[in-house]
């Protein structure tokens, strides 16, 4: 039996079908979690990096990558996790940020972590577009999000923290 070979681009296309388990409107490539695909003589290696070190979705993402690739015949596949360089929200694509916004999550502002620490960021409400918003808690329903409230439309919303 001839084992079909896949090139990197084909594999990336397959990986782009895997959603982030916690924010299913974006995929793992748009999130900037896939660092590289290495094609060796004896198999394929996908290198990923976690968004937050304790992110509980990493186990599921790893399993999803393996099962999705295997289903397409990309075997054998291993998934390796690296920490360096540390993941940053700056790696999220503009498309991903737009999708987050449309999903009701305020996307991270670009390279603004220091301002954010000082509380100088203005976060726009993803529902009504108002800038009259305030921080309720720096920690939200997942490690990567903070809780905000809009004082214009009175709706609470989540903000994807700059990281």
């Amino acid at each position, binding site marked *: 039996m001839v084992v079909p070979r896949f090139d990197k681009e084909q594999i990336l296309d397959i990986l782009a079908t895997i959603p982030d388990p916690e924010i299913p409107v974006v995929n793992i490539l748009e999130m900037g979690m896939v660092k590289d695909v290495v094609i060796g003589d004896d198999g394929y290696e996908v290198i990923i990096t976690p968004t937050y*070190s304790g992110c509980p979705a990493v186990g599921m993402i790893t399993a999803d990558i393996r099962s999705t690739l295997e289903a397409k015949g990309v075997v054998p596949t291993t998934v390796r996790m690296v*920490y360096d360089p540390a993941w940053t929200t700056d790696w999220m694509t503009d498309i991903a940020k737009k999708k987050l916004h449309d999903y009701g999550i305020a996307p991270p502002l670009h390279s603004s972590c220091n301002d954010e620490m000082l509380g100088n960021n203005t976060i726009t409400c993803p529902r009504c577009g108002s800038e009259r918003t305030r921080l309720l*808690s720096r*920690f*939200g329903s997942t490690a990567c999000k903070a*809780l905000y409230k809009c004082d214009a439309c009175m709706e609470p919303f989540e903000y994807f923290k700059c990281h």
Partner: protein
Amino acid sequence: MTQQQALYKYSLRLGDNALILSARLSEWCSNAPFLEEDLALTNMALDLIGRAQAMLKYAGEVDGNGKTEDDLAYRRSEREYYNNLIMELPNGDFAYTMVRQLFVSTFELFFFEELQKSTDATLAAIGAKTLKEVKYHHLHAKDWVIRLGDGTAESNRRVQQAVNQLWMYTGELFEMDGTDALLMKDGIAVNAEHLKMGWIQMVTQILALANIELPADGYMQTGSRMGIHTEHLGHILSEMQYLQRAYPDATW
């Protein structure tokens, strides 16, 4: 002691600190004063468990005997744990937990700022990742300590009491021994003693804003570098390790 042994112990220490503080913060799950705070405390516990996993995994690799992060977490007894004593102390009230968070996260701001420059690539990578997370932990603790200290007479009293009780456990954070000395020669370990001045300055500033008095320097409790702990660690481990002790090698 070889460099490999020192690196194993150093990684264990960093992993144990994160693991044990994570266990304590997890105890707040469903017990915090209100929902947002419940989420915050468990979010921080999650960051810590991720850090513990990375550090203990690395310790297992350095050791080279095939031990996984789970083996190291579930199959060592108290005397083989090297977390600082402050991590294992019971949570006390909310003020006590927040003062501990302030002391520890302020230390970690300085510590991981340095560890990310380590010549050991793995420690440096985990250090850089951790620093981003610790900044949030620090802001959170700082906000609460100021809010409570500068709050009512009762909340001020509780913060002051927590500061007084926890103070003698802060000296250990800066303690160094032969393990540190050996690794510092090659730029692997952080010179913790050098961090003390910055830590004191930052903590003093925050406590002043909180109308809290700094305790006089006095006796500092020590022991964890040699694996000597308070009576509280054994109780954490008995709960955490129960399943693996009762059903070795159980998986799901």
